[in-house]
């Protein structure tokens, strides 16, 4: 397992070399939202052949909330933190293919239809630690712009400038491998054996 510091926009060579478990820190730009309604609006925009308020082409698109406060000196980003990506399974294959995202991320992973889209287009999924706001926020330099400001803060499309942003752990690579799929399969395959051991343990403690 390797550790990389990569610059956005990510190129195909960067993406292809990433393997499950690699740790990545990013310089450049990321686009974030934690909103279900935001994803619906992006889907609507695609359906109407319109552009969302922020250019998403080739972006690093993260399922992440942020708390941004207006101050006399400008906007201060108090903290950022990932949200559960599986909530967006139904949208992500379309979004990944349409915008050619180079990386997506959040926490909890995505389903097989997303894994297929990532492999097809050459895109990786970064897992962030839920509850690592102090570490992730340190890498945020500046909120560059937001879109759909009628939504609550964490739902807005937000473009950030970042420096040494991470830790991001590769959990789905661009070659069809998903740590989530592997772990779920392994646990499911083991489940009857685990239940059998529970039964034996119970019998041993009552005999």
């Amino acid at each position, binding site marked *: *397992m390797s550790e990389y510091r990569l610059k956005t926009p990510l190129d195909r060579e960067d993406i292809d070399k990433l393997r499950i*478990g690699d*740790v990545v820190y990013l310089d450049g730009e990321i686009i974030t939202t*934690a909103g279900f*309604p935001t994803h619906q609006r992006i889907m609507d925009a695609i359906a109407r052949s319109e552009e969302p308020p922020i250019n998403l082409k080739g972006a690093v698109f993260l399922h*992440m*909330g*942020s*708390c941004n*406060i207006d101050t006399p000196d400008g906007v201060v980003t*108090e*903290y*950022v*933190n990932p*949200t*559960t990506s*599986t909530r967006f399974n139904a949208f992500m294959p379309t979004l990944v293919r349409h915008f050619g995202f180079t990386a997506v991320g959040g*926490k*909890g*992973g995505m389903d097989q239809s997303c894994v297929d889209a990532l492999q097809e287009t050459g895109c990786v999924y970064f*897992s962030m*630690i*839920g*509850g*690592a*706001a*102090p*570490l992730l*926020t340190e890498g945020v330099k500046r909120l560059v712009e937001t879109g759909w400001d009628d939504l*609550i*803060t*964490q739902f807005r499309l937000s473009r950030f400038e970042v420096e040494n942003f991470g*830790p991001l*752990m590769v*959990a789905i690579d661009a070659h069809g491998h998903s*740590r*989530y799929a592997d*772990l*779920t399969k*392994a*646990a*499911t395959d*083991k*489940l009857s054996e*685990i*239940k059998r*051991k*529970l*039964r034996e*343990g*119970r019998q041993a*403690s009552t005999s």
Partner: protein
Amino acid sequence: MRQLPVTYEMMKSTTRDLYEWSLKKIPEDSKVALRSALDAETEDAPKKALGFMLRSAERAETEDTLLCSDSGVPTYSVKIGTGVEFGGDIKQAIVDGFADLVETIEPPILKFVTNPLTGERSYRGKDMPIVSWDIISGADYIDVTCAPKALGGGRWAALEIFSYPTLDEIEGWIMDMVVRAGSQHCPPVTIGIGIGGSFDHAAKLAKQQTLRPFGTPNPEPILADMEKRLLEAVNSTGFGPMGTGGVTTALGVHIDYASGHGFTPVAIAFNCWINRRTRAKIYNSGEVERIE
């Protein structure tokens, strides 16, 4: 000594502060458990994930900031001693304590209180904060626990009602729910389980058990055995810290039971690795004792 009543102000400031502390500091026993887990893991990825968690916890505590952007919805467990004298509306004090937190906490918290009918997000809403009330016989204090619930931890709780189940069926169902949740609840988690009673009571028992500190013994031998057995079983599923694989999916499995009829509800609830759980006692003397 003359007894003083527990005032509205005491209840308001205590419930407010408990919430803030729960967002910025993980419990001491969680730190110990995470460090032990770090020693127990042999693979690189789970070791790294646990290391990031411990570093994040340390940073949040020293920098007085939030661990997670999802500050959850306010949930309190309030146990009132029968010797307590009320000096004001302590129920309203909890509502106002949360409103005060929203106005004053630094850094600010985001809106998570959601109307399930309209999807509207706010800082207030029907039945907020969610409070469970209990009575403690003979005590001269109010015992308050704050455990804000976020999406990751809240989403995967479950309840099933069985008819005269065997322990085999109960444990089998628990493992099904553990595999269903996978790594989406930000493991390593604390698992609380309630068996028996009624629909609502089993859920309450499960929730209360997520708040039990690690290493506290279960007084019921059947459950003490079950806790040990299930912890081992959960950790053999291999999801690991934040889904990085490894041997630490849960830090503890805590179980309580209640007598009931032949219909037996079984409930399971999860606390994420941050393990939000703060507690204080407010005494008639006016003293507020922070337990954790």
